[in-house]
């Protein structure tokens, strides 16, 4: 650094004697870059490169075992007129919106509940996490049995109670299948939201509630004007992750319906997999995956702008 050299002339004399390594180890810019390098290499190798390659593949007619040639937007042109693709887009949006909204509401409610003084609080909190801990495929297979057209425990119970006469066709009719999958996704996703929001709730200072209560705030006003504003940054983060996880869900659907019945539960991720890996059309599968990027970017932007609103949360204005 220049001011060091000016302030300590003897040091500048020594510096010429130092090895290149020594000089570099004192150079903040170089050190900064060196420390970032491992992370950058990992990000480039495992995130940027596959993403770039995926986007590139979507402009080719690559098949499994054969490099493709550049075909421009042809894959996208075919997709633009493909009913099954648009159905998968609709399914993905429907699945993501409904599941995320319900997961948020249930998760928030659970978090508020767990934040109260309860007996066996830690034990209950651990239990709530169980659905999140079970491997997705295992829970998917469990749900597959629960939803089985012949052996469903739900149908069996309702039949024995005399409430229904025929088994419920959980995965056989399009609407039932969609709702059944959404339910399974909610069951799996709620603990993540609940526990993360709970962590957020615990950072809210009790003195704020005391002050609000002294001012005559009701429970609802406490929640609306104290808890909720302080929770928004964490809500923004947790919901971004939740939306991303739900939007890119694959295992639950693949293990239970493979996109059926008649493609009613095909998400963009499962359709992309079917076309790329099972049918061998890598280029087309890559185009479907690339088509997911704008939606994912949108979700990230929402979170970004959510996080930028801290000033307002701290009592200032947005301007």
């Amino acid at each position: 650094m220049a001011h060091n050299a000016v302030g300590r002339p003897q040091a500048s004399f020594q510096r010429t004697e130092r090895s290149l390594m020594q000089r570099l180890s004192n150079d903040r810019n170089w050190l900064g870059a060196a420390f970032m390098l491992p992370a950058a290499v990992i990000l480039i190798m495992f995130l940027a490169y596959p993403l770039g390659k995926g986007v590139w593949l979507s402009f080719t007619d690559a098949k499994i075992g054969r490099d493709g040639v550049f075909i421009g937007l042809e894959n996208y042109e075919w997709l633009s007129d493909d009913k099954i693709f648009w159905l998968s887009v609709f399914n993905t949006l429907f699945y993501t919106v409904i599941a995320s909204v319900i997961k948020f509401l249930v998760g928030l409610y659970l978090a508020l509940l767990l934040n109260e003084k309860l007996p066996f609080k830690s034990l209950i909190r651990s239990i709530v996490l169980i659905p999140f801990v079970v491997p997705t495929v295992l829970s998917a297979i469990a749900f597959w049995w629960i939803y089985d057209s012949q052996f469903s425990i739900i149908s069996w119970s309702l039949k024995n109670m005399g409430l229904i006469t025929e088994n419920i066709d959980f995965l056989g009719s399009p609407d039932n299948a969609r709702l059944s999958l959404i339910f399974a996704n909610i069951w799996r996703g709620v603990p993540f939201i609940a526990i993360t929001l709970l962590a957020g709730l615990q950072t809210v200072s009790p003195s704020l509630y005391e002050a609000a209560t002294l001012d005559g705030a009701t429970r609802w006003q406490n929640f609306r004007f104290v808890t909720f504003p302080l929770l928004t940054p964490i809500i923004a983060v947790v919901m971004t992750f939740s939306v991303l996880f739900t939007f890119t869900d694959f295992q639950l659907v693949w293990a239970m319906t493979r996109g059926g019945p008649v493609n009613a539960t095909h998400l963009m991720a499962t359709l992309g997999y079917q076309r790329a890996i099972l049918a061998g059309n890598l280029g087309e599968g890559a185009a479907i995956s690339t088509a997911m990027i704008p939606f994912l970017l949108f979700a990230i932007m929402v979170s970004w702008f959510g996080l930028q609103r801290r000033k307002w949360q701290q009592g200032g204005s947005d301007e």
Partner: protein
Amino acid sequence: MTTLNRRNLLKGAGAVGAMSATGLLDFAKAWAQTMKWKPEANATLNVLRWKRFVQAEDDQFMKIVAAFSQATGVKMNISNESFDDMQPKASVAANTGQGPDIAWGLHSLPHLFPEKCLEVGDVADYLGKKYGGWFPAPEATCKAKGKWIAIPTAINGGYINYRISSMKKAGFSTFPDKTDGFLELCKAMKANNTPAGFALGHATGDGNAWIHWLLWSHGSYLVDDKEKIIINSPETVKALEYAKKLTDTFIPGCASWNDSSNNKAFLAGDLHLTANGISIYVGAKADKALNPIAEDMDHAKFPVGPIGKPQELQLTFPMLAFKYTKVPNAAKAFMAFVLEAENYNPWLEAAGGYLTHPLMAYDANPIWTKDPKNAVFKDAARNTLPASGIGPVNEKAAAAIADFVMLDMVANYCTGREDIKGAIAIAERQAKRIYR
């Protein structure tokens, strides 16, 4: 090299039926002395196969593997993958040039990456000459541009499985051999609350098998021999009309079925007629509690439709070696060894009818005669069309099956999501996308 004719093969089949493991090893050692393909020094052969449904079949296969390994010194690693995971695993291996040396998969798997498969014409010629020739469909399934890119090691026959008592109760003394009679039977069975049911979900094996029979038997094909898309035809309309009437007689829930659903429902006594391999029967025979079902069930050929001849889609199991393998000779030797009569006959027997032979000489195997309920499965390789129907077998045909183009067309119409025109239009559009 000895040439076997049917008679001495039959003799041989009886003799080797009870061949012990040491007998197998003796044969393997003798075979290794004269084998055409000398395995590379210190060869290790990694084989990826589909996961067995019949335990005895797998046990016998592993005996063959052990004998081969001991006799030739080739170290063998066998790994299993479920039906549905075979193709992605093999495809990734083909794409990355890493993984197993041999993949033993399903349907037209080699046609997804024909350029990555080791040419095995010498093995196919050797076996074909020795064992009476290959049946046409398995041969077509394993050839690309006139070259053998895989060996059709076996075929899994799927046929009608039905409960005899339920058929009789429905007023039929023998199983109907025409599609009209078949529809009447299913209607009567539904009325008796002993319904039929076929998978309409994305079931790679069972789902594709029965809907291809249904469409092909009405003369409805996706493409012709020049790859012209011909699915939008009056034949398809008739086939779909028939399919609708048929699916109306099904047990509820078929639209969500995968490959195992009908097995479970049949063995639970809820389902009385379905299309499946022999595995339901083998399973019922092996389990005492299910013996009454085994006794009351039988198999029948798919009924013949308006075009007047059998049209079946049976599941071929092609065994391919990847070009990247460092031990091509060991791979070829293994493929040839498996199909030698001394190995293949006891294996066919152990499989209990689950596997059918692709080589004509094995018609003489006792498995087809020792239980009359097995007999139907003998002709699986003889009667099947390749997975491409009347069109050429290639990667596009493989993609059309993997993408469930035909299955979704039938399901779209039969579940009421689309009218006939809409269902056909979607399939036609998908076919154009794949055959562009």
